[in-house]
C-alpha cells in the first residue's frame, strides 16, 4: 500500500471503516451514472458481480447497521404494519420496511434493479427476496445451495451450483449489459482469496494468549469481508490488520482493555441493537471473545477449480450438517483455547438456533467447558433482556472461575 512515511500511518480499523462506507457510495455513484445496481445476499459468491464490475449493496449488512444505530424497532414495526409477521427474521423485516419507505436516517442505500439471492444462509432469504422481486417487479437471480446433511459436499451439488453460477452470469450480463471476462474472473478470485486469507489470518490472532484483539472487533470489521472481498484495498486493509495484531501480540498489547481472565466462544450472530450491552458484562468480568464462527464465515478459501469455489460457498455455517457445524465450533474452540461459550438464542435465525441445543451438548461433551444461552435477536430489540444476559454471564464466570481453580489444584 502506498503511504508517505512522513505521515502517521492510518490504522487498519480506519481503512476498514472507510472501505465499508465506500462500498455503498460506489453503488450510489453507479446508480447516478445510470448503471443497474443490485441487492445481494451476504454469502452470494461476490466473484460474479466483482468480475462483471456490477455494484451491489447488502440488505443484511444494512439491516445490521440500522439495528446497531437504534432503528431496528421502527423498521420492524413498519414491516409488521405491512402484514409481515413479527416471527419473520428481523433483517428481512427491516429491509422490507426500507423497501417500502425507500430511505432511512440510519443508513441509506440505492434501490435495486435486480436481486441476487443465495440460500446458503437460509431459505428465509429466498422468501424475503421473492417479496422484493415481486413488489418492485425486478429480476431475481438465485444461486441455490442445497442444504447438506452430510459432512462433505458431493459432486452433484457442486456441479449443480456451478451450472447455476454460469446461468447467473448470463442473466446478469443481460440485465446490466456488462460483459464477462475469464481473465478478470481469475484476477478477482486471486484477490478474493488474498482478502480471505488475510481476514482469517487477522482473526486467527485470537489464538494468542492474551489475544491482541477484543473479539467484538471482528463484528465491526467483518462488513468489509462481506462487501468488498474482491478488492485489492480490502486485501491490503486486512493484511494491515493482521500486521497490527502480530505486532500487538509480540508486545502483549491488545484492543481488549483490561486483564483477559477468560476466553470464550461467542456463538451466533451478533446482537446488533445491544453490542454494548452484550460486550460490557463480558469486559466487567475479564472475559474476552476469542472464538466465533460468524465473522470468519466470510473467509472463503478455494483453488483454481471452479467447483472448489462452489464448495467453499457450501461450507458457511448455516448450510452444513449438525456434525460439521458442531465440529466447526469444537475446532475453533480448541484452537483458540476457550474456557466457556456464550450462545445467542437468536429468535430471528431459526436455522442457526434450531440445531443449537444439540451443538451446545456436543461442545460441552467434547471440550468439557461450561456454556450459557441467552435469548436475543440479531436486530429486533424487543427480544433481549439485559438482566437475563448479565445473570447468564455471571453464572458462566462462576463456573469458569471454579474450573480454573480446579486446574491449578
Amino acid at each position: 500500500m502506498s503511504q508517505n512515511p512522513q505521515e502517521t500511518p492510518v490504522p487498519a480499523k480506519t481503512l476498514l471503516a472507510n472501505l465499508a462506507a465506500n462500498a455503498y457510495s460506489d453503488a450510489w455513484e453507479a446508480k447516478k451514472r445510470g448503471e443497474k445496481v443490485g441487492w445481494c445476499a451476504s454469502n452470494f459468491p461476490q466473484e460474479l458481480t466483482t468480475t462483471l464490475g456490477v455494484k451491489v449493496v447488502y440488505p443484511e449488512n444494512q439491516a445490521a447497521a440500522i439495528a446497531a444505530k437504534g432503528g431496528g424497532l421502527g423498521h420492524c414495526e413498519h414491516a409488521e404494519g405491512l402484514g409481515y409477521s413479527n416471527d419473520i427474521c428481523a433483517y428481512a423485516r427491516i429491509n422490507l420496511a426500507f423497501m417500502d419507505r425507500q430511505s432511512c436516517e440510519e443508513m441509506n442505500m440505492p434501490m435495486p434493479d435486480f436481486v441476487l439471492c443465495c440460500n446458503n444462509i437460509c431459505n428465509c432469504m429466498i422468501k424475503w427476496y421473492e417479496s422484493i422481486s415481486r413488489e418492485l417487479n425486478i429480476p431475481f437471480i438465485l444461486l441455490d445451495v442445497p442444504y447438506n446433511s452430510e459432512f462433505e459436499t458431493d459432486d452433484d451439488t457442486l456441479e449443480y451450483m456451478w451450472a447455476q453460477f454460469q446461468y447467473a452470469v448470463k442473466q446478469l450480463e443481460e440485465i446490466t449489459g456488462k460483459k464477462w471476462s475469464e481473465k478478470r474472473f481469475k484476477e478477482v478470485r486471486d484477490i478474493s482469496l488474498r482478502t480471505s486469507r488475510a481476514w482469517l489470518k487477522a482473526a486467527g490472532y485470537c489464538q494468542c494468549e492474551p489475544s491482541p484483539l477484543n473479539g467484538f472487533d471482528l463484528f465491526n470489521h467483518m462488513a468489509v469481508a462481506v462487501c468488498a472481498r474482491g478488492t485489492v484495498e480490502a486485501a491490503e486493509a486486512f493484511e494491515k490488520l493482521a500486521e497490527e495484531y502480530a505486532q500487538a501480540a509480540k508486545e502483549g498489547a491488545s484492543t481488549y482493555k483490561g486483564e483477559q481472565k477468560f476466553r470464550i466462544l461467542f456463538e451466533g450472530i451478533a446482537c446488533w441493537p445491544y453490542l454494548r450491552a452484550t460486550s460490557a458484562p463480558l469486559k466487567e468480568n475479564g472475559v474476552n471473545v476469542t472464538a466465533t464462527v460468524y465473522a470468519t464465515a466470510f473467509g472463503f478459501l478455494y483453488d483454481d477449480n471452479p467447483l472448489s469455489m462452489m464448495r467453499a460457498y457450501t461450507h458457511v455455517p448455516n448450510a452444513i450438517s449438525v456434525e460439521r457445524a458442531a465440529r466447526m465450533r469444537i475446532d475453533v474452540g480448541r484452537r483458540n483455547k476457550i474456557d466457556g461459550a456464550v450462545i445467542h438464542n437468536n429468535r430471528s435465525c431459526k436455522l442457526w438456533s434450531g440445531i443449537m441445543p444439540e451443538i451446545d451438548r456436543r461442545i460441552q461433551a467434547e471440550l468439557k467447558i461450561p456454556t450459557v444461552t441467552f435469548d436475543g435477536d440479531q436486530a429486533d430489540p424487543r427480544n433481549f433482556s439485559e438482566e437475563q444476559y448479565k445473570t447468564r454471564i455471571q453464572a458462566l464466570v462462576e463456573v469458569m472461575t471454579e474450573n480454573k481453580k480446579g486446574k491449578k489444584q
Partner: protein
Amino acid sequence: MSGIEAKLQRFAAIADDLEGQLKKYTDQGVKVIGCMPVYTPQELVHAAGMLPLSIWGSEKYELIEAKKYFPAYISSLAQSCLELGLRGRLDRLAGVIIPVLSDALKCLSQNWKAGVPQVRHIQLVHPQNRRIEPGIVFLSKQYKKIAGVLEDIAGAPITPAGLKKAIHVFNEHRAVMREFTAVAADYPHLISPLARNAVIKSGGLMPRAEHARMVRELMAECRAEPKEPWKGRKVVLTGMLADSPSMLRILTDYKLAVAGDDVGQESRQFRTDVPDDPDPYRALALQWANIEGCSVAFDPERKRGRMVADLAARTGASGVIYLLTKFCDPEEFDYPIMKKEFDRAGLPSVLIEIDQQMRNYAQPRTAVQTFADMLG
C-alpha cells in the same frame, strides 16, 4: 347411520390414527417409510414394495422431548414430527424421508439424526432453481440416490417399469382426490370441512390404490343424493395445514363450507401430476418443476395469491381463510402479497394463526364468527 356417514367415519378413524396405521401395516409384514412435509417422492417408496406414510405432526402429544432440540419459535409442525420420533412412536418405520424445504425442516432433519437414530434418516434436498435444466438433473440424481437407499431397506430393486407403474397409481390417486374436492364442494351438507379433511388426510396413511377405491365409492354414494342449496357461505382455505378438528368444527358451526383449498397437506399434494417422460426419475423431477403457488417452492412471481383468488372465483367461494401455521415463515412471507391480491379482487379474507399445540380456540372462533357475519 347412512352409508355415507359410515364411510366418513372410517376415513376419520384412519386419519386420526397415524400410529395405528403404522402398526397395522407393519404387523402385516409391510415395510413402512415415513414421509415428512411437504413433498416426498412417495412413488419411489411404492415402487420398492413399501408403504409411504405421510406424517404431518400430531396434536396428540405435548412438546416435551422436542424442546430439548428446538427453541420455542420453530413451527409446531416440525416440532411435533420430532416429538413423535423422540417418544419412540415411529420406531416401526423402516426409514424416514425428510425434505429440507424450509429452515425448520432443515433443523428437523438434523435433530432427527441426533435424537432418533433408531429410525434411518433419508435426506432429500429439492433444488430451488427447479425449472432450469441443472435443477432438473440435480433432482433426478437425488431421487436415484434415494432409490438406492430404499432398495437397500426393502431388499428389492426399483425397476423403471415398476416406478412407471407407481407413478400411474399415484397420478390416478391424485385425479380421484381432485374429483373428490369438487364433490365435497357440491355436497357440503353431506361432507363437512372436518370430514373433507379426513378423507384427504387418510390418503397418506394407507395404500393409495385402496384409498382411491374407497373415495370413489364415497363419491358415488354422494352423487346418488340430491344436491341441496347450501344455507351458509363457501370459502377457500389456504395454508400449510388445515387438519385441526377443533378449527374445522368452528367452520361448521358458522355454516362455512370448503369450496376448495390451497393447503399444503391437501390440494397441493395432488394438484400437480407427475408428467410423462421416458425416464421416470426425470418425470418425478419435472413434477417438482411444474408445481405452482406453493410457499416452499421458489416462485419470484408469487402466483399463489392470484391462484387462490381464481380458485375462489371458480368455485363460487365468497371468501378466503388463511390458516397460518404459527412460525411457518414461508407461509408468513406469502401473506402480505396475497392479502393485496385478495383486496384487489374484492375478495374478503381473514388471517387466523393456528398451532398444533393450540388448546384454546376462542380467538379463532371469534375471528371465524366475525368473518362469517361479514360474508353475510
